[in-house]
């Protein structure tokens, strides 16, 4: 036992370690993961068609907003689209049933096989249809659900479709082909979705900013007529934003156990992202600890909790009891066996003693007979046997009683050692040899004991000196400890650097290592030999062997770990001393606290403002959205963030307003400023309008009459506008009849205020 522990005044002198305060955290804001799901079967709605047939001819039409995020379809005389479906389909053949299945829209998500066969009508990330089979399927589904299956041979209703800004002639031709040839519609009118939305919101002259699913357009509109030649497209929309967010999340959590997909990213984008009013300022302090609680959003993915069987107190107690019981039984058995052996030995001893007594008063012949009966050579043998038995009986007895046989053993006699060999007979010599061995043994034991004592005294002395020094010169003592601590820190750092360097093949450390390996392995004459003698003297110095240790570092992990433990343990002891006696050194300053998660920016980024429990399944299945919340929507203003080599929305809008619209005769640029109109799903982000206003204000003259407004419903207004447009004079001039199409060609359209020009 350490003397300091027995000594009461010393133990009182060691102050207890200060206890760090425990922090508690408010519960995190956790949102469940959302993704596109199959909701329910949509039955056909024949009532719409009946109503349409009841209308006067030409005033009812099927209106389809053919968007890349969703196809919305309904009747022109209604205020809402009846159907909304993603432009996807899935078709597969069930071989077991020998039946082909095909689904369209959200129905594709109803079945796992179907989900695997989903195809999109639009070319990924654009507003151009590239897969016409899918398009046809989606239209089939739409017409079926609108109750058109009662029509014979053709769709007997005019159709209004939206199309991309400056749609490609080939796309228009293919669409016309489908509408007129496959469906046999009497007439078709096409227009641009964002312009329909603008019309619905009573816009006359202004700048339409339409940021939708696959692209962002800025279109000036003058007197209700789109100036498409001045329109600009930015290839960034909700789809790209979702893909970008998905990419970021996959990079952020490379080992995430759940499955991440674009539809989940879309939901995250919609629910948690917003446009920052001052991006650079906000992002700089986004991961600061103050307020991170509010900025960090946790998305919880489904998980199964690992079942840990909780044993009751009683059960645990019973288990411990059982264990103890069996141990006791074993002990008892062993004791019983020992006792039996002891009894036997005692009996033997008794017997041999009897024999010895008999020998005492027996003649020579009798003695020989007795000894032969016991298989003994001579009396000495008998004596030795008796002695041995006595010893072992004694040993067994003391063991049972619990004494220490070593301690109690008295110093054996070594009297024969001093007697010269020539005075001894054979047996004496043998005994002498034995005694010599025993003496060596005894001496070694004594030496070790003395050494132990000395070491103990030395430690004690050291501690005492340390204490004395501390008491006399606290400042100096503390300084010493601080220096030692810094030294240890430096050594830890150096070791880490060496480890990193060894990982790099080209580093100096690696090269030195390779050189020494090569030196050790080579049998041929070395450089050294040329200079000096034939022998390289390797091994003469003990330090030479260190080279093997050196080259093993980095590969031999256990060796490395040992060293690490040592350094860290050292550091911990030093820090404990400092914690005890240095008032300026607190738990905050310890190495552990310095490298703690709460100091780590990456922890804030990956795991938010709370400690991360590696073992909790729930936390492993969590995504933290923080920087991404403003980083992703920002791309539409700074496309370079996501590697899109185009100008941002503000730059585009101010270019149109400041360069393209000035200098055109009869046009007042300020008319456009008075009505900057936002539509499309990607403008739904909070602060989108504020951000655009800020950006444009900076690039416009001081008192420009800038006014920015949002569409009443940025998503559905395009359809509503198109529905409203049906029956107007503009609609009548814009419809292309089947006859006209047949006569004038595949991609024929009539130019009108809300549509594309005929190139």
């Amino acid at each position, binding site marked *: 036992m350490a003397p300091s522990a027995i000594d009461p005044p010393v133990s009182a002198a060691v102050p207890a370690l200060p206890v760090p305060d425990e922090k508690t955290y408010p519960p995190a804001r956790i949102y469940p993961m959302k993704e596109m799901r199959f909701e329910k*079967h949509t039955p056909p709605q024949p009532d719409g068609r009946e109503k349409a047939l009841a209308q006067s001819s030409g005033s009812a039409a099927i209106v389809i907003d053919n968007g890349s995020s969703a196809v919305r379809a309904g009747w022109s005389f209604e205020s809402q689209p009846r159907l909304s479906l993603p432009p996807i389909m899935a*078709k597969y053949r069930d071989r077991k049933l020998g*039946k082909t*299945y*095909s*689904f*369209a829209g959200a129905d594709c998500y*109803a*079945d796992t096989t*179907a989900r695997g066969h989903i195809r999109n009508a639009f070319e990924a990330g654009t507003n*151009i249809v*590239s897969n*016409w*089979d899918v398009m046809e399927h989606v239209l089939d*589904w739409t017409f*079926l659900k609108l109750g058109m*299956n009662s029509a014979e*041979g*053709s769709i007997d209703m005019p159709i209004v479709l939206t199309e991309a800004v*400056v749609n*490609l*002639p*080939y796309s228009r*031709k293919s669409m016309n*082909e*489908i509408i007129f040839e*496959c*469906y*046999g519609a009497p007439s078709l009118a096409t227009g641009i979705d964002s312009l329909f939305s603008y019309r619905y919101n009573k816009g006359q002259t202004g700048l339409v900013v339409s940021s939708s699913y696959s692209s962002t357009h800025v279109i000036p509109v*003058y007197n209700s*007529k789109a*100036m*498409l*030649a*001045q329109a*600009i497209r*930015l290839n960034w929309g909700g789809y790209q934003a979702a893909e*970008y967010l998905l990419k970021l999340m996959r*990079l952020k959590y490379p080992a995430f156990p759940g499955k991440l997909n674009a539809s989940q990213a879309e939901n995250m984008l919609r629910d948690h992202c917003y446009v920052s009013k001052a991006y*650079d300022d906000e*992002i700089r302090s*986004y*991961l600061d600890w103050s307020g991170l609680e509010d900025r960090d959003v946790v998305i919880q993915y489904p998980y199964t909790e690992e079942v840990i069987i909780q044993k009751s107190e009683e059960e645990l107690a019973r288990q411990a009891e059982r264990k103890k019981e069996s141990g006791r039984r074993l002990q008892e058995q062993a004791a019983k066996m020992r006792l039996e052996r002891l009894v036997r030995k005692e009996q033997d001893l008794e017997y041999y003693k009897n024999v010895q007594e008999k020998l005492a008063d027996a003649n020579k012949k009798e003695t020989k007979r007795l000894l032969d009966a016991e298989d003994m050579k001579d009396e000495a043998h008998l004596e030795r046997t008796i002695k041995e038995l006595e010893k072992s009986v004694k040993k067994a007895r003391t063991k049972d009683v619990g004494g220490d046989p070593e301690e109690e053993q008295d110093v054996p006699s070594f009297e024969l050692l001093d007697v010269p060999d020539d005075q001894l007979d054979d047996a004496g010599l043998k005994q002498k040899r034995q005694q010599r061995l025993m003496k060596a043994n005894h001496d070694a034991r004594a030496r070790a004991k003395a050494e132990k004592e000395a070491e103990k005294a030395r430690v004690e002395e050291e501690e005492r000196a340390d204490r004395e020094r501390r008491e006399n010169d606290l400042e100096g003592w503390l300084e010493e400890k601080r220096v030692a601590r810094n030294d240890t820190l430096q050594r830890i750092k150096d070791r880490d650097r060496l480890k990193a360097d060894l990982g790099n093949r080209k580093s100096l450390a690696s090269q030195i290592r390779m050189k020494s390996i090569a030196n050790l392995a080579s049998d041929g004459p070395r450089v050294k030999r040329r200079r000096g003698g034939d022998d390289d003297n390797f091994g003469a110095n003990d330090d030479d062997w260190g080279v093997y240790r050196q080259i093993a570092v980095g590969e031999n992990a256990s060796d490395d770990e040992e060293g690490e433990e040592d350094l860290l343990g050292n550091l911990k002891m030093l820090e404990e001393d400092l914690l005890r006696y240095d008032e300026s050194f607190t738990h905050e300053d310890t190495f552990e606290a310095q490298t703690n998660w709460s100091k*780590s*920016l*990456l922890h804030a980024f990956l795991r938010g403002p709370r400690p991360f429990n590696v073992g909790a399944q729930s936390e492993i299945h969590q995504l933290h959205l923080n920087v*991404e919340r403003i*980083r992703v929507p920002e791309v539409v203003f700074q496309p*370079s*963030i996501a590697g899109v*080599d*185009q100008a941002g929305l503000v730059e*585009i809008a101010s270019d149109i307003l400041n360069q393209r619209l000035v200098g055109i005769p*009869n046009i007042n640029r300020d008319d456009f400023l008075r009505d900057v109109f936002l539509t499309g799903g990607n403008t739904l982000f909070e602060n989108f309008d504020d951000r655009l206003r800020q950006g444009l204000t900076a690039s416009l003259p001081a008192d420009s009459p800038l006014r920015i407004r949002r569409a009443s419903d940025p998503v559905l207004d395009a359809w509503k506008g198109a529905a409203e447009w049906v029956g107007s004079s503009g609609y009548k001039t814009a419809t292309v009849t089947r006859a006209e199409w047949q006569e004038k*060609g*595949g*991609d024929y359209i009539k*130019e009108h205020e809300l549509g594309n*020009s005929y*190139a």
Partner: protein
Amino acid sequence: MSAPTEAQIAHQELIDQLDIHSIHKSFRSPHWRPNQRRNKNIKTILGDASRKEASIVATPQDDSGAATPAAIENDGLSTSGASTPAAPASGAASLQPNLAQASRSLSRLALEKSLRPNGSGGAGGVASSAPSATYTNIESAPSLAHSRRYCDVTGLPAPYLDPKSRLRYHNIEVFGYIRSLPQGAPEQYLEARGAHTILK
């Protein structure tokens, strides 16, 4: 094989209900046979269109008169704007610009053509005086503004660049993280920023 469970039967019923393959669609024309190769991506469409332009120009219009362009128009595969009824309408006047079009892209071509005074469509003075828009030429030009640099990992402002992985980073901690990334991961970070190396 075990008998289908109740859930499986219900699912099968749902699928049968949702399936639109087995429904006879009376509104579709029974004679509709779509072109087997109608699915094209934008690149192909634009490529085809510009090839068409080039072939029109290559045709010796002086010799064959109006017959050749008409034949091209009627082949049913016409995709480009130039083979629309507007083209022959301009007649000999369009010959001169057409010759110059041979080596030009579609967007330039359309631009030039719309510069010609045409009285089409009652578009009003504003629209018709400007060059017409095409899918390619309304694309936004590269930004003239100075692009800011953000950390590839955290998205924070990044004053530093790791010369080894070419990643931008915010501070030394992120740098340590970058250096600990497995092989290939830095390239993925670069790809998110569009700065990755593309091997062709």
